[in-house]
């Protein structure tokens, strides 16, 4: 077969068996690929995507709005990478989908929502099209100072800086870090978009620009250690920035808070409440950070921690990964990821759904409303919960 288009991993695309293990968590309890769950066609499952990618590379199917929808509805949650049956091969599944999206970006055939997202980030530096000058406003009242030469840079990211739910989360983390006496500062209006989702959606040129600008700023300011609010930022800072010359020590705030609790820098009182926790894909499957958030929640005296049926490496994505937070290709129907996820959280009987990512916070907060669960379930960031339990 002749190949008329090219992607980096084209040599292995044909190896997908289409068996579908990758649709599931390890116990097969429900579909764990958010786009398959939402759309219900095999073409929207990882195997379908692999087979269609191959057909498309060989010119058996053309570029179309449907093909783009199929590719851009993958939320880069990495479940397929964990669950596929073929060792080694499986590590490249999300890369193949990302490379295909990049190729579509190159051809200029992308869904309108994706195009608008790129444009907003390129023009305004954030997807909300809000002024750069307002980027640091969220930090007012937290005690956080501009970054000069403190030990840590606290990186809030676009959602933490501009979205109402995200800002609350950023504020609570910021306050917690300051109160614990950490030497930490923020970039405020000098902070740039991390580019993780731009990259996931395949706009490699824009990603390179964003990443380079951030790296230059970090270096110019003498930043050595970064604490991120957003696991998306954590992911790209750790995975992609080093290759571009950006080598920093990067931690997620949950790791830092867990450490501060252990060192008794954050002291907690009894808070009798039942809590469950949603693993963000970029923190869990992408970065293998599962225990720090749980350590935090388990450290709260009298709080009862319960797991959702799908948790840890088997967690179901909130649907906000890989840029879908902004592009919303998965939609908000009954089987959309965020709605499925909050129903699963409610089943545990918990009254708090703890989150560690501002994207998840927003997705799940909205879904709680759609599912009419406001009376039963509150979505809160880890630090927001700690605020209630702090002595």
């Amino acid at each position, binding site marked *: 077969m002749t190949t008329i288009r090219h992607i980096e991993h084209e040599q292995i695309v044909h190896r997908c068996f289409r*068996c*579908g293990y990758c*649709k*599931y968590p390890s116990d*097969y309890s429900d579909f764990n690929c958010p786009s398959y769950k939402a759309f219900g066609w095999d073409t929207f499952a990882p195997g379908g995507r692999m087979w269609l990618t191959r057909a498309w590379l060989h010119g058996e199917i*053309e570029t179309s709005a449907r*093909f783009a929808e199929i590719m851009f509805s993958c939320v880069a949650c990495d479940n397929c990478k964990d669950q596929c049956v*073929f060792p080694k091969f499986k590590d490249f599944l999300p890369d193949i989908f990302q490379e295909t999206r990049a190729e579509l970006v190159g051809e200029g055939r992308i869904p309108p929502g994706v195009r608008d997202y790129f444009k907003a980030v390129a023009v305004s530096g954030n997807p909300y099209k809000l002024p750069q000058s307002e980027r640091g406003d969220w930090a007012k009242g937290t005690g956080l100072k501009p970054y000069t030469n403190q030990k840590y840079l606290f990186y809030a990211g676009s959602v933490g800086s501009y979205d109402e739910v995200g800002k609350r989360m950023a504020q609570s983390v910021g306050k917690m870090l300051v109160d614990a006496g950490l030497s930490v500062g923020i970039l405020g209006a000098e902070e740039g978009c991390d580019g993780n989702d731009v990259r996931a959606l395949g706009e490699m040129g824009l990603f390179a620009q964003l990443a380079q600008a951030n790296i230059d700023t970090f270096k110019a300011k003498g930043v050595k250690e970064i604490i991120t609010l957003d696991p998306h930022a954590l992911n790209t800072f750790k995975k992609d920035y080093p290759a571009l010359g950006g080598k920093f020590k990067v931690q997620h705030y949950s790791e830092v808070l867990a450490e501060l609790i252990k060192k008794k820098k954050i002291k907690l009182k009894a808070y009798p409440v039942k809590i469950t926790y949603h693993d963000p894909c970029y923190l869990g499957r992408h970065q293998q950070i599962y225990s720090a958030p749980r350590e935090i929640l388990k450290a709260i005296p009298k709080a009862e921690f319960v797991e959702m049926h799908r948790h840890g490496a088997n967690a179901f994505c909130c649907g906000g990964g890989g840029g879908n937070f902004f592009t919303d290709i998965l939609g908000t129907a009954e089987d959309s990821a965020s709605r499925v996820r909050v129903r699963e959280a409610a089943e545990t009987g918990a009254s708090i759904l703890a989150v560690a990512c501002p994207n998840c916070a927003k997705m799940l907060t909205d879904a709680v409303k759609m599912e009419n669960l406001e009376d039963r379930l509150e979505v809160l960031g880890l630090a927001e919960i700690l605020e209630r339990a702090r002595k």
Partner: protein
Amino acid sequence: MSDILQSLIDIVGEKGVSNEPEELWFYSRDPGVLAPHKPDYVVAPKTTEEVQKIVQLAGREKIPVVPMGNGMSLAGLVIPLKGGIVLDMKRMNKILEVNPMGRYAVMEGGTSQGALKSYLQKNHPTLRHSLPDAPPTTTIAANVSLHGQGRLTNQYGFNSDMVTGLEMVLPTGEICRIGSPSIGPYWFSKGPTLPDLSGLFLGWLGATGIITKVGLKLFPNKKIRDVELFVTDRVELVPQILYKLTHLEVCEDINVWFQPKPQMFLGNFHVTIFFTGDTEDEIEFKRKMIWDSLQEHMDAKDGGFMSVQYMKSTLLEMPGRTIADFADVPKGGGFEYSGPIALIEHYPQYAAKVVELAQKYNVLYASAARLISGGHAMMFSISFAFNRDDAAMMERVEKALDEAMTFALDMGGIPWKPNHKEQKMLLERMEPNARKLLLMIKKNLDPQGIMNPGNWEVNA
């Protein structure tokens, strides 16, 4: 927009039907070696009534309807050979009832094996079903439509023998219940003591109707499962070994496998013996029975039990993920197998044939046989892996499998999940009156020939 497309949208809504090139391309093929053929529409119903309306529409318009689970038979059974509608049943995936005391479950016709396994584990941990080693995405209704076999087949027969009732949408659009649910609310018998009408549907590969609900027997899920692995290089002893093991009546499942890769397996026949118990005492008692039964072969140095320690968890996994791995041994993501149902005494001839065909066609083989009903027969898999990017290799595999099936028929075996070519070979050999009976049934049930046409197409 065509009238048919609009009518389908009226039935299942816009999200339930597609005639986009992407779905048509994907649903025109399966992972095996047979050539694809495009459907005109792919439709994903959510209720029995939707299935009924789709079938009625197809009847009016004389369009083929091909029910599909996960399309993993590898035998092209869901390739729409004559176009029409591929009916993706997987959105009908509710587990409707488990009767723990009656040990049966009832689910919709697109429910996956994985979903039932997981549901039972969570809600009824003392119960299990006969899980095949097919990927967990494959559906229960599809499996009984092709007389599948699973982990409990050695003890209780084909998985289709474990059906306890059906709800069918007939090719004429009527909804019909089969077995005890046709009389009352309980789903405990597919036939007896009535005339067993389930035979009009089980094994028919969707050519006589669509299963919208299926009842299935459940069995005790013992607390402990264990496995022993007996290895011999004397193929002629395999039938006897199996005979001795089945005489014990203590084994959950017995498989015999041989493969050339990795090298350590070459030349040996591996008998995997699974057994279960509620206590360590029960397990040890059964283990002793198993060992004792094969003592004379060990004394004669014809074989021995191999330590399973390092591969125990792999062997005990259900479904066995590593079975799918075979597809990627030539780094090409494909394999296909014929699985004739044959007599155990013929094991050595079948084994020799696999190796002969692999050499002749220069392809990689693996074989695993599973005992059926305590040894009345076995499913002997003749599997060849291929590289999906190598059309010539795929062609060689297809030829090797054709030849394997001719051999199996010559040996008096019957093909399992036969592809459309094998069905023709089989029908040609069938005793004429039996063939006439099949034709009569098919014609009466599906007078317009709309159900999975190309399959079980009996010519007068």
